[in-house]
C-alpha cells in the first residue's frame, strides 16, 4: 500500500510543523507556567511576513526564513515586554487572559491590514516529486524536515551548552532557586519568547508554502494544534512536545486517510481529550513529578463586589421593561435583544468561570447545542418553539455537563484547554453529523419564537421575552449563589484540596454548576436559533466564547449583575459609537487586555 507511506510522510511533515509551534509553547510553559494562546497569532504573523518577503520583496528562500524568524522574534519580544511582564505579580489567570487578548488584537490587525481573503504563498522551490519506496516526497517536504531537525539541534545545543540555555532549564525547574543563583528571570522570559516566536513564525511561513495559501483563520488552528501537541507530550517538556507533534501529525494523517479531511481536527481534539483524561501530565512525564500547576487561592482577583441596592436593580429592570412603550427604534431593541442573549451566556460563564473557577474557553458550544436542539425539535418534531427552547436548555445542560465531565479532575489552564477542545469537538460533530445536523448546509427555516400558541414576531415581544427569561435566570442564579451551593462553589474555586478535605465532592458541585450554566447558555442559543431562523456550525464560534469571557471579566467574575452589565456594555457601546464590525473584535481584544492589566476585578467586582 504505497498510499500509507505517503500518509506517513505527510503526517511526519505536518508533525514537524506542529513541533515548531509546540516546542515554543513548551519552552514558555516550562519557564512561566503559561499556555501562550497568542502563539498561533505569531504563526499567522510569520506567514504574512513570509508573504511580504516572497511576493513583495522577492527575497531568496534562505533570506526569507531569516527575515521571518527575526521579525517574528521581535513580535514575541514585544508581547513579552508589554503584554506579559507587567502582569508578573498579578493573579494567575491574568497572563492567560492577556495572551488571549493579544491573539485577538494580532489576528484582527493582520485581517485589517491584509483583508480576510486567502493569499497564495509560493514556496520558491521547484515543483518536483521524488519516488521514495512506494511514496513520493517533494523539495518542500525536505525543507520542512530540514528546518525541523535544524531547529531541534540548535535548541538542544542552546539548552545544553550555553549559559542562557542553562538559565532557561534552571528557571523551568525552580524559578526562585534560579533567581538565587543570579539568573535574571526577565531575560530568560525574553529568550524563550523570542525563540518561541521565531520558531512559530517560521512554522507559519512553511505551512503557508506547503498549502500555497495563507489566511487569518490559520491562527486559532495553529494555537489549538500546538497546544494539543504540547499537552500530549507533557506541558513544559520540550522533547515531549516534538514527539507529541509527530504523533499528532500521524494520527491526523491516518485519520484523514480513513474518514476524510473534514475529520482532521476531530482526531486532534479527541487525542487531546483522551490524553487529558488518561494522563493529564502528558505521555512522557513520570508520575514522580509534581503536578505542574497548583492553582489555588489567588486564581481570580480578590475584591469586594460593588453593592447595588435592590431598589436600584428593580428600577433598572422596570426601566428596560417599559422601554418598548416609548418610541424607540427597532435597531435599539435589536441591540438590546442581543445584549440579553449574551447576558444569558454571561450568566452561564460567570457561574462556571467566576464562581466555580473553571475558565471555559468553549462556551459557545453550549449555545450551539441549545440552538441545534431547539431548532431540530421545532422543525423535525413540530414541538412548539417555547417548549423547544426549554428543550435546548435541558439538552445543553445534560450534554454539556456530560462532555465536560472528563475534565473535572483538571485544574487551571488545563480546564481552559479541555473546554476549548470540547468546544471544537462539538462544532466538528455538528459539521460532520450530516444526517442530523445537515452538516455544512446548516438549518434554515427555523420557526419564530412562540408562546402558548402565539408567535412572537414583533421586536417588542421578542425583547420582552428575552428580557424576562434573562431576569428569571439571573434571579435563580442569585438565589443559587447565596445558598450553601454558592459557598461550596467558591470554596472549591479558592482551594479545591481544602474543599475536598472538608468533604465536598468536586464532581458533584462542578456538575451542578455546569448543569445550571449549560441550561442558561442552551436557552440563549435556543432563542437565538428561532430569532435568526438560520444556523450553521459557524454561527456559534470561538470568538463568541471569548466575547463571553470578556463580558464576565468586564462585569467582574462571578458577579451576576456584572455579567449583564458587561453584556450591555460590550454589545451596546460599539453600536453607540457606530464601530464597524471588523474593528469590534479588535476592540474586544483591547478591552480584555486593558481589563486584565488595570482592573482584573471588573467593573462591579468579583464575587
Amino acid at each position, binding site marked *: 500500500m504505497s498510499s500509507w507511506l505517503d500518509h506517513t510522510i505527510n503526517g511526519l511533515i505536518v508533525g514537524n510543523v506542529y513541533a515548531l509551534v509546540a516546542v515554543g509553547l513548551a519552552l514558555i510553559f516550562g519557564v512561566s507556567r503559561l499556555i501562550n494562546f497568542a502563539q498561533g497569532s505569531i504563526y499567522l504573523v510569520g506567514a504574512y511576513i513570509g508573504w511580504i518577503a516572497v511576493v513583495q520583496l522577492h527575497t531568496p528562500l534562505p533570506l526569507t526564513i531569516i527575515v521571518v524568524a527575526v521579525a517574528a522574534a521581535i513580535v514575541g519580544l514585544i508581547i513579552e515586554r508589554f503584554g506579559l511582564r507587567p502582569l508578573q505579580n498579578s493573579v494567575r489567570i491574568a497572563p492567560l487572559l492577556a495572551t488571549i487578548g493579544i491573539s485577538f488584537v494580532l489576528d484582527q490587525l493582520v485581517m485589517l491590514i491584509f483583508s480576510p481573503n486567502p493569499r497564495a504563498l509560493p514556496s520558491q522551490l521547484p515543483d518536483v516529486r521524488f519516488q521514495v519506496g512506494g511514496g513520493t516526497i517533494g523539495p518542500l517536504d525536505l525543507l520542512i524536515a530540514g528546518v525541523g531537525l535544524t531547529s531541534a539541534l540548535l535548541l538542544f545545543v542552546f539548552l545544553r551548552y550555553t*549559559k542562557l540555555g*542553562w*538559565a532557561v*532549564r*534552571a528557571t523551568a*525547574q*525552580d524559578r*526562585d*532557586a*534560579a*533567581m*538565587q*543563583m*543570579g*539568573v*535574571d*528571570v526577565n531575560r530568560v522570559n525574553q529568550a524563550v519568547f523570542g525563540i518561541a516566536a521565531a520558531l512559530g513564525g517560521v512554522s507559519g511561513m512553511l505551512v503557508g508554502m506547503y498549502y500555497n495559501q495563507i489566511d487569518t483563520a490559520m491562527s486559532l488552528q495553529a494555537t489549538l494544534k500546538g497546544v494539543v501537541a504540547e499537552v500530549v507530550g507533557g506541558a513544559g517538556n520540550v522533547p515531549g512536545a516534538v514527539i507529541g507533534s509527530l504523533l499528532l501529525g500521524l494520527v491526523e494523517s491516518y485519520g484523514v486517510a480513513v474518514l476524510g479531511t473534514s475529520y482532521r481536527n476531530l482526531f486532534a481534539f479527541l487525542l487531546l481529550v483522551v490524553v487529558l483524561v488518561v494522563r493529564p501530565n502528558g505521555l512522557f512525564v513520570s508520575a*514522580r513529578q509534581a503536578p505542574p500547576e497548583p492553582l489555588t487561592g489567588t486564581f481570580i482577583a480578590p475584591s469586594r463586589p460593588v453593592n447595588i441596592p435592590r431598589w436600584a436593580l428593580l428600577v433598572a429592570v422596570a426601566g428596560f421593561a417599559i422601554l418598548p412603550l416609548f418610541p424607540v427604534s427597532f435597531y435599539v431593541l435589536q441591540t438590546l435583544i442581543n445584549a440579553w442573549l449574551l447576558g444569558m451566556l454571561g450568566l452561564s460563564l460567570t457561574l462556571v468561570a467566576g464562581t466555580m473557577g473553571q475558565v471555559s474557553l468553549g462556551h459557545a458550544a453550549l449555545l450551539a447545542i441549545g440552538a441545534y436542539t431547539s431548532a431540530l425539535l421545532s422543525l423535525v418534531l413540530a414541538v412548539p418553539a417555547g417548549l423547544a427552547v426549554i428543550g435546548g436548555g435541558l439538552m445543553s445542560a445534560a450534554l454539556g455537563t456530560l462532555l465536560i465531565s472528563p475534565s473535572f479532575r483538571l485544574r487551571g489552564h488545563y480546564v481552559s484547554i479541555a473546554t476549548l477542545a470540547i468546544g471544537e469537538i462539538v462544532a466538528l460533530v455538528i459539521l460532520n453529523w450530516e444526517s442530523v445536523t445537515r452538516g455544512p448546509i446548516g438549518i434554515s427555516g427555523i420557526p419564530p419564537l412562540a408562546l402558548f400558541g402565539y408567535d412572537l414576531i414583533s421586536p417588542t415581544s421578542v425583547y420582552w421575552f428575552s428580557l424576562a427569561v434573562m431576569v428569571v435566570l439571573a434571579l435563580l442564579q442569585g438565589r443559587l449563589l447565596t445558598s450553601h451551593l454558592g459557598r461550596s462553589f467558591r470554596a472549591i474555586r479558592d482551594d479545591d484540596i481544602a474543599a475536598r478535605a472538608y468533604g465536598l465532592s468536586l464532581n458533584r458541585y462542578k456538575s451542578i454548576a455546569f448543569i445550571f450554566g449549560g441550561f442558561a447558555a442552551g436557552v440563549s442559543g435556543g432563542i437565538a436559533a428561532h430569532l435568526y431562523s438560520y444556523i450553521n456550525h459557524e454561527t456559534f464560534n470561538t470568538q463568541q466564547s471569548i466575547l463571553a469571557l470578556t463580558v464576565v471579566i468586564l462585569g467582574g467574575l462571578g458577579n451576576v449583575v456584572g455579567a449583564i452589565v458587561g453584556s450591555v456594555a460590550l454589545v451596546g457601546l460599539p453600536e453607540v459609537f457606530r464601530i464597524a464590525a471588523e474593528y469590534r473584535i479588535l476592540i474586544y481584544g483591547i478591552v480584555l487586555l486593558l481589563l486584565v492589566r488595570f482592573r482584573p476585578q471588573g467593573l462591579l467586582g468579583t464575587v
Partner: protein
Amino acid sequence: MTSAPEALLALSDVNTFYGQAQVHFDLSITVARGHIVCLLGGNASGKSTTMKIILGLVKPRSGEVTFDGASLIGLSTPQIVRRGIGSVPEARRLFADMSVRENILMGAFVRNDRDAIAQDLDRMLTLFPKLGQRLSQRAGSLSGGEQQMVAMARALMSRPRMIVMDEPTMGLSPLYVDRVLELIRSINQAGVSVFMVEQNASLALEIAHEAYVLQTGKIVLSGPARALKDDPRIRDAYLGGSEAA
C-alpha cells in the same frame, strides 16, 4: 573579640506584610563580618520571610537592609546575589532534572572566569568528596543529605562573602546533621560569613557566634550564642512562653 567586628549585613527596623497581616515588627539583625549568626524561632515566626527579605524575594514595607554598607532595598534577587550573597534555600531546591555537576556550576552563574570556575569545582569535590561519584547523576535522585551537600557547594560556587541558609539540617539523618554543621564551620573559617535560620536551637548554638530568637515577627532574645545556650528563655520562646515540654 577585642574590637567590635564590623557589620556585613544589617537589617534595621524592618516591617513586612503579607496583605493585611504583619509578619515582621521592627526587625533588626546584624551579621558581623566573619561570623556565623543564627536566627531561631518556631513555626510561623517569620524566619523564612527574613531570608526572603535579605534575598529580595519579598519586599519590606519599611526599614533598611544593607550589605557591606550599601542598601539592598529595591535590588532584584539576581542583583543581590551578584553583590556577594550565596543562598542555600529551604528544602535545598536543587534543579532536580539537571545533573549534580550542572547544579553546582549553576552556582557560578554570576561568574565568567571559566578556568577559576573549573578550579572551584575541583575544590568543591575535595570539600564534598561524596559528590565526585555523583556528578553526572540527576540531582533529584540524590538522598536528602547528598542534596544538602550539592546545595552548599552550589552556594559556594559564586564565591560569596556571605551565605544565607534556610534550615540546613531540616530532614537530614543525625549523621548528616553533624556533617553539615561541621561544613558550615569550615566554610566560615575560610572567611565566609554565615546567616542561618534554624529550628534546631541547640545544634545551631553549637556553631554560631551570635543568635537571635524570633517570635511572631519580633526579636525576643539576642546575644552571643554561648550566653544563650543555657538561657531558659530560649525554650520558653519556642514553646510560646508558658508550658514546658
